[in-house]
């Protein structure tokens, strides 16, 4: 379903993704793990037509995101790592815009929107502006929105960041449900190794832009001779702490917080 070959992305002299190749089969749940700044989000951005690769090739459902942008976009859904909601609109309105942009017929849109908002316990607040929501609620709304249309491939970029255990549980059981009942291929990133171990069929570990290991959770543990995935991960990527530089958008968010008193 996803085929990536020798993918490279450089920003100036910095190579964020360096010669990465992997395959994800249809109906598979693939976890893409790596420390901060390893190149996970950059890879997702290239897979989802937001960035152009420097070299290498990508195929989603047999289509190249570079030449068949719209066709590719019809096939996937994504929950971003950072916020992508419109704070001035209500929860329902955010859902509605998404449904219209993804061509979900209005009847199904309303019905699914209600189901999902109830599932993620946002139904009572559906008429409130999103900027009044707490961090966890916004996150839940992003996830609910990601499930509004049924894509062939679902990208989840650190979806559980800032979620309480209840919502996390809810999310993963829903992911498993759509994966089993509708054969949705799932490509996810997370920092919680236990989640990856529990949910993913296969795992890829990326560090410094390079894929350092690939296989089922069991294979990866055997390969590194470790008991659990967390130890395997540390064995593969070392224990030094990484930091991403703040990008322009982060700096502006900071700036905007100052001005709006943290309302957004």
């Amino acid at each position, binding site marked *: 379903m996803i085929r990536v070959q020798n993918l490279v992305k450089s920003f100036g002299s910095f190579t964020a993704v360096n010669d990465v190749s992997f395959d994800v089969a249809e109906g598979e749940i693939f976890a893409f793990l790596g420390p901060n700044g390893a190149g996970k989000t950059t890879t997702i*951005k290239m897979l*989802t*037509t*937001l*960035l*152009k690769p420097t070299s290498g090739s990508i195929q989603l459902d047999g289509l190249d995101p570079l030449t068949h942008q*719209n066709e590719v*976009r*019809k096939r*996937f859904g*994504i929950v*971003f790592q*950072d*916020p*992508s*909601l*419109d*704070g*001035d*609109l209500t929860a329902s*309105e955010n859902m*509605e*815009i*998404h449904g*219209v*942009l*993804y*061509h979900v017929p209005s009847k199904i849109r309303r019905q699914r929107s209600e189901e999902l908002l109830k599932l993620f316990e946002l139904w009572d607040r559906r008429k409130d*502006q999103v900027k009044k929501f707490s961090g966890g609620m916004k996150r839940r709304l992003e996830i609910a929105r990601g499930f509004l249309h049924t894509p062939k491939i679902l990208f989840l970029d650190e979806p559980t960041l800032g979620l309480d255990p209840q919502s996390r549980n809810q999310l993963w059981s829903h992911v498993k449900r759509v994966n089993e009942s509708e054969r949705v291929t799932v490509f996810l990133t997370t920092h919680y190794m236990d989640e990856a171990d529990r949910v993913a069929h296969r795992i890829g570990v990326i560090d410094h832009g390079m894929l350092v290991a690939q296989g089922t959770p069991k294979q990866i543990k055997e390969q590194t001779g470790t008991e659990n995935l967390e130890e395997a991960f540390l064995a593969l990527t070392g224990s030094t702490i990484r930091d991403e530089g703040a990008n*322009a*958008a982060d*700096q*502006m*968010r900071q*700036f*905007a917080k100052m001005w709006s008193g943290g309302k*957004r």
Partner: protein
Amino acid sequence: MSAIYILWLRELKRYVRSRAQIVASLGQPLLYLLVLGFGLSPVFKRAGMGNYLQFVAPGVIGMSVLFSSIFSGLGLLWDRQFGFLKETLVAPVSRLQIMVGRTLGGATVAVIQGLLVTTISIFAGFRPAHFIAIPLALGFMVAIAIVFAALGVAIGSSLQDMQGFQLIMNFLVMPIYFLSGAMFPLAGLGPVLTFITRLDPLSYGIDGMRSMLLAQSAFDPRIDILVLACVGSVFIVFGAYRFSKIEI
């Protein structure tokens, strides 16, 4: 089509919900209208040019349409930082439709803003030649709004963050306003200023409004329409091109 509609509607909803901003954005036109309108009135009259408030009102209306439409395009920067832009960019809708929806939304908001200022100027003592002239002037407001909303989208697509905002404001938006003949008659200027004012698309918009509202103008209204239509088409194409090139 439904994508264009929903994005247009979004701009409108955001506008209606930001009441404080609506009031704030009326401050500057009010100042120009009342302070300059009454302040320069005696001098203007002594120069044999008639009532300055009458003259400046279409200019101030044009100004509010200009500011509001350019800012709506620059709203892209906010969407970029709050992330909503990504949501629209990965959707299976052509970027052209997204750009058109935003532009029309921004233009509609700008026209509403223009109508608010028109109402205020009528309260302040502005009298159009006929009240039928207002719908005709509205056509020019729409043209100005579309031209500059498209320009705003083109600029908003090219900037990464708000740091360029002051630059755009001081070296593009303010010059467009001051060189448009919004505040002074275009006739009898020196050759340099005459040349520059002829290059400013807003000159034709304001001249068109003035010829509808006051039956006095520097150019033929047909030329005004023609110039606005041409510049508008170019800006829409340019804006759509810049928008299609956005990477996040």
